[in-house]
């Protein structure tokens, strides 16, 4: 399929057109960059040191097992506090050194180091909290970054899964038509009327406790997908209906191609443009809905870093800690704007009025 897309001159044309729309193109590059950076977030925003040189040996704690405090000469067995370790090295004036990430705080970590800190420390460069802290002294920047990572991964997963289901269902209805179509459409209509939010609330509350956070997040994703794939099917169905009447489909049939082959090899590449134009908006919708769910308290299990949770804290403490709302709203608006720019550009690039196959 990949080779087909590459070979398809129309697609290359569309891609070239997309690249020429500067705003969308750069937004896309920026988003991809941001997401890749967030995937490597541990290297930039982390409570663990990047490199520790201790007694002539090098350690790279970022991705490995946690190192007990005793190992570095503290009196505790739990994980080393590398900021303390840094101070200790400086104090002892030894040859040991370590390198901390730019933001030396983790998303879960409460920075109660200062006697006076009781939550909601304002942004400051000297403390290292660029965006301030939240109610339990967690770094807002760290939570925003990891929240971005989770929200984007979640949205991409959401996109893939909803499209997968929608493509299958839509093309079956569109290709076979007739009774299959009618029955399928009715089922989709019924399914689409199941109240989504209530289902999420109910299902989240009965999620088994022994599942880990990863499982809980994935199951939340599955629940959301389960109740929102229906919207896309209509478009796919219509597109397939249209394409199916074309000669090349009849030709393929005459040659003796199977239905599956015709759908996935012949029809899909031709209806993909419909999908692609919707994709960025689906991502935007997914980001907003996971944020909204978190805001309402039905989303990711606490204390998973999330924008919705930050927004809620911010709104509740608008006067006391305006930096939470400011930073979380800014990043939310920024992300959604970027995604929308990409979406606009894609839509324009794929506009059939410009590249119609009827010519």
């Amino acid at each position: 399929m990949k080779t087909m897309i590459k070979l398809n001159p129309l697609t290359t044309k569309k891609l070239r057109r997309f690249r020429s729309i500067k705003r969308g193109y750069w937004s896309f590059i920026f988003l991809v960059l941001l997401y890749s950076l967030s995937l490597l977030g541990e290297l930039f925003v982390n409570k663990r040191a990047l490199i520790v040189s201790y007694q002539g040996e090098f350690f790279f704690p970022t991705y490995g097992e946690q190192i007990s405090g005793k190992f570095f000469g503290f009196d505790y067995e739990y994980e080393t506090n590398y900021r303390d370790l840094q101070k200790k090295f400086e104090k002892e004036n030894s040859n040991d050194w370590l390198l901390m990430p730019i933001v030396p705080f983790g998303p879960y970590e409460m920075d109660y180091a200062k006697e006076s800190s009781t939550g909601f420390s304002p942004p400051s460069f000297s403390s290292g909290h660029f965006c301030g802290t939240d109610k339990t002294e967690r770094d807002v920047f760290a939570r925003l970054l990891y929240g971005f990572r989770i929200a984007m991964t979640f949205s991409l997963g959401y996109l893939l899964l909803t499209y997968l289901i929608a493509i299958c269902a839509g093309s079956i209805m569109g290709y076979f038509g007739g009774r299959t179509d009618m029955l399928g459409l009715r089922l989709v209509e019924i399914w689409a009327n199941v109240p989504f939010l209530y289902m999420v609330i109910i299902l989240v509350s009965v999620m088994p406790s022994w599942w880990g956070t990863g499982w809980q997040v994935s199951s939340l994703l599955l629940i959301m997908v389960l109740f929102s794939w229906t919207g896309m099917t209509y478009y796919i169905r219509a597109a397939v209906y249209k394409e199916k009447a074309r000669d090349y489909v009849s030709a393929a049939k005459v040659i003796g191609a199977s239905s599956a082959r015709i759908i996935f090899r012949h029809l899909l590449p031709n209806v993909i443009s419909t999908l692609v134009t919707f994709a960025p908006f689906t991502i935007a919708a997914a980001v907003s809905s996971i944020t909204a769910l978190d805001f309402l308290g039905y989303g990711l299990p606490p204390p998973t870093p999330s924008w919705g949770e930050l927004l809620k804290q911010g709104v509740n403490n608008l006067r006391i800690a305006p930096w939470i709302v400011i930073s979380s709203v800014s990043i939310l608006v920024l992300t959604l704007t970027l995604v929308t720019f990409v979406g606009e550009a894609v839509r324009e690039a794929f506009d059939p009025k410009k590249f119609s196959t009827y010519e």
Partner: protein
Amino acid sequence: MNNMKINKIYYTAFLFVSLLFFNGCEDHQLKPPRESGSEPSRQTGESGLPVDREFARELARELGREFARELSRQLNEGNSSIQLDSVFSANSVQIDRDPGSLVDMDGRPHPLLAHCSEDVLEFYQSHADCFAIKSLQEIPAGLNWKDGLGEEEFSSPDAKRGGTWNVFMRDFPRTLRTIGPDANGAFRSYLSDYNALSLVMSHPNSDGYYPGLASSWAVADDRKTVYFRLDPDARYSDGKAVRSSDFFFLFYYMRSKHIQAPWYNDFFGKDKFLKVTLFDSHTFSITYYKAKPDVVERVSLRPVPEHFYGELDGEYLNKYQWLPEPTTGPYVATPENIDKGKSVTLVRQNDWWADQKKFYRYRFNPDKIKVSVVRDYNKAFEIFLKGEIDMFGLAKTEFWYEKLTDKNLLVKNGYLSKVTFFNQTPPPSYALRINSQKAPLDNQNIRIGFHHAMNFKLVLEKIFRGDYVRMNTVADGYGARSHPTLQARTFSVEKAVEHFAKAGYLKRGPDGILVNKKGERLSVEIVTGYKHFEDVLVVLKEEAKKAGLEIKLKILESTAAWKTAGEKNHQVIFSAFNSFVELFPRYWEPFHSDNAYQQDGDTKYRKDGRLKDNLVIKTSTNNFTQTAVREIDHLINQYREEESLERITELSHQLSEMIHEHGVWVPAWKKPWLRIGHWNWIKFPQDWGPKETRDYEEFQVFWIDQSEKKTILKAKLAGEVLSDQPTVRIYDKYQSN
């Protein structure tokens, strides 16, 4: 002859039944009234002819009465071959069997009950073992009558009457009944709890009592029966005197199906209140089922005005939905002062009967209480800052420290006060309740390790800014009954790790969480329904990692959380129960094995005291810890039976210790104070309030200085400074530690 009599009886019975049937015909949904004496009749619809029905009913009753009399007369004549007892026993017409003294031979009621309706009388008669009338001579001689007048007054003689006290409620009350469906709302306290008087009131500054409706009282030698003499002045707000028979009626009312309040049906059940005896219109006694040291408090009830209700039927809920019952308290709600959906204004009676009596003369000072609906808490706070609400609770940290700081002009200029009042009362029981039956928490070492892994010190210091203190036992705040020295286990990584090691969790995994030989991680889930305490749990979770314990948080809607705990599906639940001001704590509900498993008493245990296999869990009880320990059971049984206060105290300490040892209850925190903000035209006594004040509205010892209100409002407009210091006050007279 015999046949004729039987025929006559059958004929009358037929007439009786057909009348009942006829009566029920007009509405198919209606059931014949009181056929079995226990069936609650449905509420009637709008159709039907109420007058006719009432008439038919009266007629049926009259005939029934006639019939019963005739029957009893004939039976008395010696025709014992007629065995019709069973037919009528259900009808509870047992006039002849045990006439007692409630009704004479002719069915005429005792003069004290002359006003009672047929239905009410029938009820008394059918429960003749609970209701009795005796003569004044039968009151035992040598009773130690008390009148409580020696107790000190807890209000201030400086108090002035007058003014309107403005308060808010979150939602408009759904009814003005104080009993029955929807009646248990926040507004109820204005009608009942903080207003109506009961027989005897427990003194909020001492262990003694002061008079309420009863001017004197005496505990009998059996220490179960308490004699009361009603204050001859005691009257309801409609001017009718309080009669001793209202305490008969109280039980008719509370045990009635028509009030649709199973909790009250049960609370006022036969098994708790054994007997009420009337001696004259002002003297009576109530017998409680057990000789508890605080028996006076337990039987100090509020009367129900019989003249107002007459009798109850299926119409009860509809009829009294918006018709408040006459009260013995100072404030009256009348239908014309209800602005539906917006506010209810309670007006003080001009000639309240207790107006000038000791303990009441300086209380209940405002002329009116206007309770307005403000649905949003933050909005209510803004209205308070505008001066349209007089007082506002400031217990929440953010309100006290951030939203109304000492630098706020209202406080700084002396218009508004911030008050901390230290009180002494059983706190709500905030705690982590460990389900001792779920692995790995079925191991005592894990539980104790869990205790040591909970860093409540940090929570108190950082989240509550040192305002709250740690709760130490399962029963804090019960005076001498609370354990004097027992301390909650403190956060200690070493001790936690040591106990976890004893349970086999020796090694730390790659993420720092302890692992046992089988490779199982030490992971525990905490469920809670308190979204607003998420930050507390997050701190506990992060700190527990240090001890190698992973905590998973599950924050649910509160009903879902209670359901999880009720089904005993949780590992640990963070929750709290409200405590009442009582003399001694309750252990049976939360810690007795009968509330953990369905098997009874000691049948749960093997000989060596271990639990048997295949026990069936009992759901929907408050034993969230699933505590089932034979020794604790036995102690609780003893505790419940015990009648001497000294022994109860001893047992209570012992139980606190054993539960501490068992390690199923991690006490969290308590607030040793009340914190409120109030406008400075509200004046308080020197000590602010009595020791056991739980709510600033509770004892109503404050008053409104109306001239000062004008001054303050004027000064506020002009920006004038009324005080050189911010008006922030602390009353620490009752601070315990």
